[in-house]
């Protein structure tokens, strides 16, 4: 094997193993987020939404749908990689990867591709559920897909970082409870930034999640509240920065190699 060649069979095998797990335990990995997304769409989008005025010319359910999709995409990607890698560390099956002729990039790519697949399938499921309640337009399908995949990569990388850092299951759950959930709710999932008191709007504007949600909303229903270039810069920066960080930690064997 040449030092810099890609071990495609190994990569494919690892991705097949990881994605296979997503579909094998689909009730937990896909059914649970679809179920809660259905309730969000029904109650917030459909029932409550009928009593809320249009936002920037679109019905509330159409305004909130991209946020719900993005919220589930982020959680799916994060949950997948954080749990998969942490469990591998915990039961030491990570040794199977460490002793095999896989490069660190191939290991990371394997986790990330599976995370992206789970996130995209979750997002598609949420979208299809919304079709029962609204037209659920997608103005720019390609751009929407780019946003979903890019954000999935970011959260897959974040999940891996948390898995590497965590010493126990409690630590593993802390970031999603105290960082991801608050930033999601303050990122404009359920409301326009204009609905926020002016004194709090700056919090939303410095929240990267606002740009993630806004990017998808802009590409789906054409409501764009954030500066797209700032959003693109944040997404590119986080993708490269977190990706490099994960690669570096794998390279030095941080908490995976004795």
């Amino acid at each position: 094997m040449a030092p810099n060649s890609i071990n495609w069979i190994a990569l494919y095998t690892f991705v097949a193993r990881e994605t296979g797990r997503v579909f094998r335990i689909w009730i937990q990995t896909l059914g649970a987020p679809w179920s809660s997304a259905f309730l969000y769409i029904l109650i917030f989008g459909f029932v409550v939404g009928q009593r809320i005025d249009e936002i920037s010319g679109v019905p509330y359910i159409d305004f909130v749908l991209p946020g719900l999709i993005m919220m589930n995409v982020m959680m799916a990607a994060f949950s997948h990689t954080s749990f998969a890698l942490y469990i591998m560390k915990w039961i030491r099956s990570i040794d199977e990867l460490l002793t095999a002729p896989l490069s660190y990039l191939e290991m990371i790519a394997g986790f990330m591709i599976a995370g992206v697949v789970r996130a995209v399938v979750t997002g598609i499921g949420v979208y299809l559920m919304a079709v029962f309640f609204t037209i659920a337009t997608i103005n720019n399908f390609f751009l929407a897909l780019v946003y979903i995949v890019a954000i999935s990569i970011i959260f897959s990388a974040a999940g891996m970082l948390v898995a590497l850092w965590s010493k126990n299951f409690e630590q593993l759950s802390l970031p999603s409870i105290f960082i991801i959930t608050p930033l999601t709710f303050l990122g404009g999932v359920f409301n326009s930034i204009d609905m926020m008191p002016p004194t709090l709007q700056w919090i939303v504007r410095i929240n990267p999640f606002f740009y993630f949600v806004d990017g998808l909303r802009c590409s789906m229903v054409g409501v764009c509240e954030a500066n797209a270039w700032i959003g693109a810069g944040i997404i590119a920066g986080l993708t490269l920065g977190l990706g490099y960080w994960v690669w570096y930690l794998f390279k030095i064997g941080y908490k995976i190699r004795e």
Partner: protein
Amino acid sequence: MKALEIDKLRKSYGSTDAVKEISFSIEPGEFFGFLGPNGAGKTTTIKCITGIASFQGGTIKVFGIDVVADYRRARTKIGLAPQDFNVDIFAKASDILWYVAGYYGIPSALRKKRVADALERFDLGSHADKRFEALSGGLKRRLMLARAMVHDPDLLILDEPTAGVDVEMRHDLWRYLQDLNKSGKTVLLTSHYLEEVEMLCNRIAIISGGKIAAIGDKSEFTMGGKKLEQTYLEVTKGVNGNGTK
């Protein structure tokens, strides 16, 4: 070219030196016994060879390939049956072999054959669809050996491979390892069953307190009609400073 060449290997866990600048080598085709008391540094050395542990000093080469600088190529040469079960306990036995063979880049047609051969060789055919957690201790041990062999490595590292294996299977395993060794494979074996080491190995090293306390041909350890166990006790107690040597 040596099958394994370790030069001044140093490994610490915090302030504890687990392996203290040890050096030894194994010739291709050797059946090498690596002995020592619990905590002497055997498993740590193996983990450094296979990439499970990083190390602070020294070099390790497998068939001339540096295990750090060219780790991917080095790992294709090594098969490891570890002391602890480092495996996805929820996976089926056949899937464990299938995935690991895939990690070594074996194409699916050949992989199918290798997995079937490994299951048959270790008498695991009727357990292929059982999850790892549902297997008995002996079956788990056999599966670890099958996993180590599924990619046909040149250097086989066995860390206490017969612990928990019944007598019948142990004898089968000995025959299998001897056949493998005769076919040209190099074997590094650690075991607390010294009669096993005495029967199988042609060279032996004893590690104690993180240092190589003795190394040589088996005949040097059993000179004058001594049992290996007697020499082993003399060496390890002598090194630890609490014996009568």
